[in-house]
């Protein structure tokens, strides 16, 4: 009989091995997707622009309403909390600075990333997982179509194009939400709010947020597609893959955000 300690150590070992393997799989997927994007043309298997555009509409354009709504609410919420906190110091005039920096550096990329992960991460995993169990992935391979080139590469390109754009849109809308509240609460005209905001913001702040969104784009794409490809057991497997890709996607985004912010603020 195995004693509890040995089996615990064995379990930890297995789990770690599995995690390492999974990270390795994601890394390989990323390298291969970039390979096809850059060199597919020379291998007679280009990544089609039409496919990239189709994905860009799916993951980017269609996400505009929800990201806009969330950003507006977050901007307004930041204004409410900011004024409330700063009032204790009698410094509510500084609220513009607080909103501008936290929106561009933190909230816009995070909100955009989380919402796209929730919307598209699950959809990607479900689509590829379903193709896996109905043998459509095998059908692609026997036709001579590399599944990474055909399914992952266009998606990665679309994410890398649209997520930064969505983040900038989110910047503007969140600032608008903040400005609207300040106009009511502090009688601060919207024009002045934006003037002051653009005065304090330097290009670095916006770039900081946009850089994060590139990382989030990679995370969402890899986790969604990898979970899809690894589906093996029927409809239940597809369900698990979608849940997993949303949960892991969101966690991945938050952890990456923390690490990135830590490294960049030193």
């Amino acid at each position, binding site marked *: 009989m195995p004693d509890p300690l040995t089996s615990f150590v064995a379990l930890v070992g297995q789990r770690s091995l599995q995690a390492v393997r999974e990270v390795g799989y994601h890394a390989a997927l990323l390298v291969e997707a970039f390979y096809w994007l850059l060199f597919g043309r020379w291998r007679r298997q280009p990544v089609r622009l039409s496919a990239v555009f189709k994905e860009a509409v799916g993951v980017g354009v269609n996400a505009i309403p929800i990201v806009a709504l969330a950003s507006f609410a977050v901007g307004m919420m930041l204004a409410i909390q900011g004024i409330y906190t700063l009032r204790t110091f009698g410094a509510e005039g500084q609220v513009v600075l607080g909103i501008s920096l936290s929106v561009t550096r933190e909230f816009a990329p995070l909100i955009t990333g989380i919402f796209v992960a929730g919307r598209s991460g699950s959809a990607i995993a479900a689509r590829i997982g379903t193709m896996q169990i109905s043998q459509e992935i095998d059908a692609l391979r*026997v036709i001579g179509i590399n599944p990474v080139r055909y399914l992952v590469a266009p998606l990665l390109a679309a994410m890398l194009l649209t997520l930064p754009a969505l983040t900038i849109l989110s910047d503007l809308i969140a600032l608008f939400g903040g400005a609207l509240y300040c106009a009511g609460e502090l009688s601060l005209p919207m024009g002045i709010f934006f003037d002051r905001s653009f005065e304090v913001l330097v290009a670095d702040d916006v770039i900081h947020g946009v850089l994060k969104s590139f990382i989030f784009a990679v995370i969402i794409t890899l986790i969604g597609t990898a979970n899809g490809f690894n589906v093996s057991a029927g409809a239940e497997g597809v369900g698990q893959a979608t849940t997993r890709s949303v949960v892991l996607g969101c966690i991945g985004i938050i952890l990456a955000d923390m690490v990135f912010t830590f490294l960049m603020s030193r």
Partner: protein
Amino acid sequence: MNASDLAIDVKNLVTHYGTRKILDGISFQARQGEIMVIMGGSGSGKSTLLRHLLGLHQPTSGSISLLGKDITQLSADAMYDLRKNMGVAFQGGALFNSMTVGENVELPLREHTRLDENTMRIMSRMKLEVVHLAGFENLMPSELSGGMIKRAALARAIVMDPRLLFFDEPSAGLDPVVSAELDELILILRDAMNMTIVVVTHELESAFKIADRITVLDQGRILMSDTVAAVRASDNERIQSLLNRTPRNEAINPDEYMERLTREIF
């Protein structure tokens, strides 16, 4: 038999799923222009053998030559070229659910040729004509019946006029009339296009009707690979029981039985 007449030449193929040996020492050959039926009970390894013939898995050992090229040694580019000469109809059809029937059939042309839209459309309609699906090109796969899906998959498999055609379980899940029609179609394809056709099936009737030669698989080994007449006349016990549909009742080896029951229990 001249080696250059061989469309398929499998030598000593051994394969595993994980640590479990699935195919053991498989060797068989198929000549150009003949219909080779791979027959065997459920779980005998037919689909596994087919997946290896399609180059979807790397075998543990052994060689698989298709049209004179050993696919276990082939470079990715050479395999890509070889795939233009291979067509596959999967058991469940594996039609791409996001595309119409017509787009499904056109896909191999789109990937492998530089034909213009109209030519591709005409060629795909010609193949749909062959499988009696003319006029259905604008339907989605979900709008087709089981028999129609298999025929559409067949149209996609032959759209490049491949020299090798693989067909997994053409009659599974179909009523006798529809499955007889599919058998008819397979014979027509062989005669009209001189294709080498590999059909995997567990249906005896269909096997005897279409086969030039039959390879009988049983628990991962080949029982025999010979002409229809020879298989019918075989006095091998397992083949006879397959032909007469008698259940297997081999004597149990007590040691193996104990080993199976206690395996992987510490």
